[in-house]
């Protein structure tokens, strides 16, 4: 009769999987990269390290997206904005780390010299401190998400309306960041970074350190969101997704449940963005484009909504496919991506995770439309 006590956060197999992932990311990849010389069969190239690091950042975004879409039923087409905000916040620090090594030999970032600015704008204050920048890369997306989410959820904007308004939000932000006067480098954004925490940013050791930190952040994000969705909070969140008015009439205010998930999700995106910028070496307004944000949704859809592990796999699958296509058949990438959107929504509503699980759960509850 009694429901069993709360399941442990991870079962034995999942614990093993997490262990293998961390071992690979923290020991195997660094070892293969450093020990074997370039050209060796077992050498992991700089390109591969950067690519995997980048995809792990995307995987954090996929986890964040799964929280809000898979569990909250809220499809955001503007998550690229929060990713980019985190990236820009940390990018400010990286720009300051260039110091006088820029092409104008000035204390100011090159683009400001180019615009003939004499001082840093006020919002650049403190950006030379690593901790401040790191805090900002969490706080800026969180604050933006909180304010927007508060107004949107309070006026009960839902479903496709919410989606297209988030799309407009990121579009507006992209236009804003394209302007030189905004003070974030306009079209070109931030690039040509030299150092992070004083270490040269392109050295193998720094790369591997960033790679390891990203792997750790991915593991922590996964565990945190998993804990969140397994708590009573998470069950209320899915309850609101499936029958909002029922949840309201038994005393849950959807505004705060949605807003919390939304803000946490945006914050994770900010963390991912902050880790992405030093590894990829550039951040510009195109990260905020509508197309980028919608692509996040397809990672989650491909992997399977509401599974957490699925979206991580989806982010890896889609982005590895993307880097293969853009090298081998650049002109077919959009066809492939477009077909992927259609096939996944039409034929695989539960994504790869659904394929994996389908044979085992015959009496699964009916698919509810989020």
């Amino acid at each position, binding site marked *: 009769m009694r429901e069993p006590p709360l399941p442990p956060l991870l079962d034995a197999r999942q614990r093993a999987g997490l262990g293998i992932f961390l071992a690979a990311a923290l020991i195997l990849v660094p070892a293969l990269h450093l020990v074997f010389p370039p050209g060796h069969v077992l050498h992991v190239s700089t390109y591969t390290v950067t690519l995997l690091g980048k995809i792990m950042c995307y995987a954090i975004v996929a986890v964040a997206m799964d929280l809000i879409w898979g569990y909250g039923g809220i499809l955001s087409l503007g998550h690229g904005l929060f990713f980019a905000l985190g990236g820009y916040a940390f990018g400010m620090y990286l720009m300051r780390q260039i110091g006088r090594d820029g092409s104008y030999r000035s204390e100011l970032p090159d683009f400001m010299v180019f615009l003939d600015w004499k001082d840093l704008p006020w919002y650049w204050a403190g950006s030379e401190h690593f901790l401040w920048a790191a805090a900002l890369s969490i706080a800026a997306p969180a604050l933006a998400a909180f304010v927007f989410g508060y107004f949107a959820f309070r006026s009960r904007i839902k479903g496709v309306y919410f989606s297209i308004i988030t799309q407009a939000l990121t579009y507006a932000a992209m236009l804003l960041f394209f302007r030189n006067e905004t003070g974030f480098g306009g079209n070109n954004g931030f690039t040509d970074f030299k150092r992070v925490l004083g270490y040269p940013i392109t050295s193998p050791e720094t790369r591997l350190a960033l790679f390891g930190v990203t792997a750790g952040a991915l593991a922590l994000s996964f565990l945190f969101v998993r804990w969140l969705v397994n708590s009573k909070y998470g069950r209320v969140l899915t309850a609101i997704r499936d029958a909002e008015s029922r949840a309201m009439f038994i005393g849950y*205010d959807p505004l705060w449940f949605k807003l919390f998930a939304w803000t946490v999700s945006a914050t994770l995106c900010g963390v991912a963005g902050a880790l992405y910028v030093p590894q990829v070496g550039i951040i510009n307004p195109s990260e905020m484009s509508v197309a980028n944000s919608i692509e996040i949704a397809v990672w989650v859809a491909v992997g399977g909504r509401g599974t957490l592990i699925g979206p991580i796999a989806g982010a890896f699958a889609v982005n590895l496919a993307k880097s293969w296509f853009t090298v081998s058949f650049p002109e077919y990438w959009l066809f492939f991506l477009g077909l992927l959107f259609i096939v996944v929504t039409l034929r695989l509503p539960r994504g790869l995770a659904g394929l994996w699980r389908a044979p085992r759960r015959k009496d699964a509850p009916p698919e509810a439309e989020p």
Partner: protein
Amino acid sequence: MSVRDVLRGIIGIELDENDPFGRPARRRTLDISHNVILYLEDITVSFDGFKALNKLNLTIDAGELRCIIGPNGAGKTTMMDVVTGKTRPDSGTAFFGQSIDLASLTEAQIAHAGVGRKFQKPTVFERHSAFGNLELAMTADKRALPSLVARLRDEERDRIADTLRLIGLGGEADRPAGLLSHGQKQWLEIGMLLMQDPRLLLLDEPVAGMTDDETMRTAELFVSLAGKHSLVVVEHDMAFIEALGGRITVLHEGAVLAEGDLAAVQNDPRVIEVYLGR
């Protein structure tokens, strides 16, 4: 957004709206000193010119079991929407007890104050287990952040188990609610209401889709609840209403047409005209 909203939502402090110093408010207490739990006065609701409620006046006594009948479009569901905060009246006042103004509260706050509602179409969380549905409905701290660390205590577990047995779902605790039959879902929703422990229950066609046997068991349950709780039941099933045996209010075109016991209402010429005359 006001400081009050932020405090309420994030750190769970409810500020007294009338206190200039913004001190925390006491929990809203239901005042039924006049032995009346619900007052609706001159409530009017219109949708694009159509008056769903037209100066509706209705009072429910504390502990009463009231049945509401009326033809389609009489305003029964809209009346429940007004009480639960889903629809704001264009004019008129709605008070819960002597002091709680329903018009100033959100749906969730009204639920907290002690109003429970069952929908016409059974609405349960289909992806949650029967147990989980009751757990979510159970009286508890229902704000977002406290729910992060909420754990079930043993006595709460027992209470859920008792309710599951009472609604005949003792063997279905772990089944997703979406896989239950229509009647079972009706019962589950009633069980959720019980877990909520409301002072006033609004039940919109609670026995639709139930067998005769189930219907009679439901009637027994409701009669046993009356007294401790107040119940407002909207139904078409006259046998069920007879079994409940409470006072009956007939709604027609958004206003009260007649009120009294079953015999009085059935013999009222206006009621006969409304049901049979046209």
